[in-house]
């Protein structure tokens, strides 16, 4: 009886508050996408720089790894005095977190490109930029996208915690639910966050697999007849 009640409550809540839920999903996505955009803009050039120096890359990866190990709640707490409450603080923290995942994978991608392929490219007169765009990036892409996928899933999860410092998003549902002891909100928050992660994972996996096939020269469309 209680069970069916809860299920009914669950759906009734949607009927009543679907606008709010959609707004929270949108907010959540906004944070995630902002974090990812900034992170990629930092991570790809950073990885390229680190690719030049073994020493530098082990130092930077150690630092990023250490930052990644700080619990997110503690990280938010440290940054609040500096950046204040709200979305900018949340985005900052998440960008720092995601660097570790993205840089590690992107760097691995660049390193996986065979030295002889790069030498052939340089030898035929490709400039640094041309070599990057035509050769290094497409060949590192599968690894980069693999990192991106992990980063997206981690960001979607951590963004729920960012609601604790007033950044908005699906975490708001969770924290409200906890405060008000209202399970329906918690369940909605969980289900939506899960669906977002699941969908992001599926979509990115498609791109990742495609780029992997492309980089290996295994696309089926290659040979006609």
């Amino acid at each position, binding site marked *: 009886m209680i069970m069916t009640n809860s299920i009914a409550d669950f759906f009734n809540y949607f009927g009543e508050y679907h606008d709010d839920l959609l707004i929270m999903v949108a907010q959540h996505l906004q944070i995630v996408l902002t974090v990812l955009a900034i992170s990629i803009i930092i991570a790809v050039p950073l990885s390229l720089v680190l690719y030049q120096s073994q020493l530098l890359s082990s130092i930077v990866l150690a630092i990023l790894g250490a930052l990644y190990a700080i619990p997110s709640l503690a990280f938010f707490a440290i940054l609040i005095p500096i950046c204040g409450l709200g979305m900018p603080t949340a985005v900052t923290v998440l960008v720092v977190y995601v660097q570790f995942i993205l840089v590690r994978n992107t760097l691995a991608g660049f390193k996986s490109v*065979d030295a*002889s*392929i790069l*030498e*052939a*490219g*340089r*030898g*035929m*007169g*490709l*400039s640094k930029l*041309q070599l990057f765009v*035509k*050769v290094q990036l*497409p*060949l590192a892409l599968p690894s980069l996208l693999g990192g991106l996928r992990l980063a997206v899933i981690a960001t979607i999860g951590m963004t729920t915690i960012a609601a604790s410092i007033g950044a908005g998003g699906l975490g708001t549902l969770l924290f409200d639910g906890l405060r008000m002891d209202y399970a329906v909100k918690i369940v909605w928050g969980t289900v939506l966050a899960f669906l977002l992660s699941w969908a992001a994972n599926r979509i990115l996996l498609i791109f990742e697999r495609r780029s992997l096939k*492309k*980089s*290996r*020269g*295994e*696309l089926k469309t*290659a*040979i*006609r*007849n």
Partner: protein
Amino acid sequence: MTNIALELVNITKKFAHAETNSVTGVSLTINEGDFVTILGTSGSGKTTLLKMVNRIYESTSGDIFFYGENIKKLKVEDYRRKIGYVIQQIGLFPHMTVEQNIATVPKILHWNKEKINARVDELLKLVGLGDEHYKKRYPKQLSGGQQQRIGLARAMAADPQLMLMDEPFGAIDAITRQNLQDELINIQKKLNKTILFVTHDINEAFKLGDKIIIMDKGEVQQFDTPYNILFHPANDFVKQLIETENIINRLKVLRVENFVQPLTQPTKLADGVIHNDKFLDDVLAKFFETGKKRLVVIDDQEEPIGEISWDQFIQLKKIQDNVVRLDVQKKNIRRVNDHD
């Protein structure tokens, strides 16, 4: 008038942290249209020397001139686009089709589409992969020998004046290798490219090279024609190197064109003939096959240009002297031509 394609002046390379030089004091001049092979044991500095030419490595000291210009003064990308580079590991771009691989340099040179397509077709035909369906394949879908051919085609795409090739046929079985060697000789003849070709296979070096650079311990031991290396080795190292070759192998690397004598009598239909780009072992076979004491040498147009006789043949010493004299004559003729 022969142009000097490449001039190396006292080139030395010492890698950072290395104890000794990898290449020491190399000076040599390579004429346009020369097919030069670089022969030496592993670690003798062949690759290092080659890579200094296209500035993959910068020389520690010395200068390299490309058609008279110091390559340090040229914009490195522009300079490299004039040079075809084939590396031992092939280095095809795995994410690009055969067609895209070959079109890489023409594309960055902004050729138009039709010109690029025509060029790709032309090159694929040239390297013996003219079948339409190869174009859309990825490198992975080709055999090692086919990949090597595509590497060659890609290096020639923008019609470079100079080709650098680092043991391009190293990893290929003997038969395919011979085919590729023959094709390369044909291509070089047809297009008159200047080629620098690294190998540690003595037969390959003698078969392909108009001239051979013999290297040991980072230094050039001798830079000369196959003939002079066999008959006038510059030092003990070279002597030892060629002593491993028996008489038949020596014949295999000596071209008929170096031994042509003036015709002693008018040519007849019944004469045995031999093409001037054949080698002396072919001549020997022809003598046995035809039972003749005299063969008429013909050129590409099948015109008789001289003869080669059994008596002359069995006295290699005599042949040698004659050739030296012929060489001198040729040089004199060249000099006369150079003046006008």
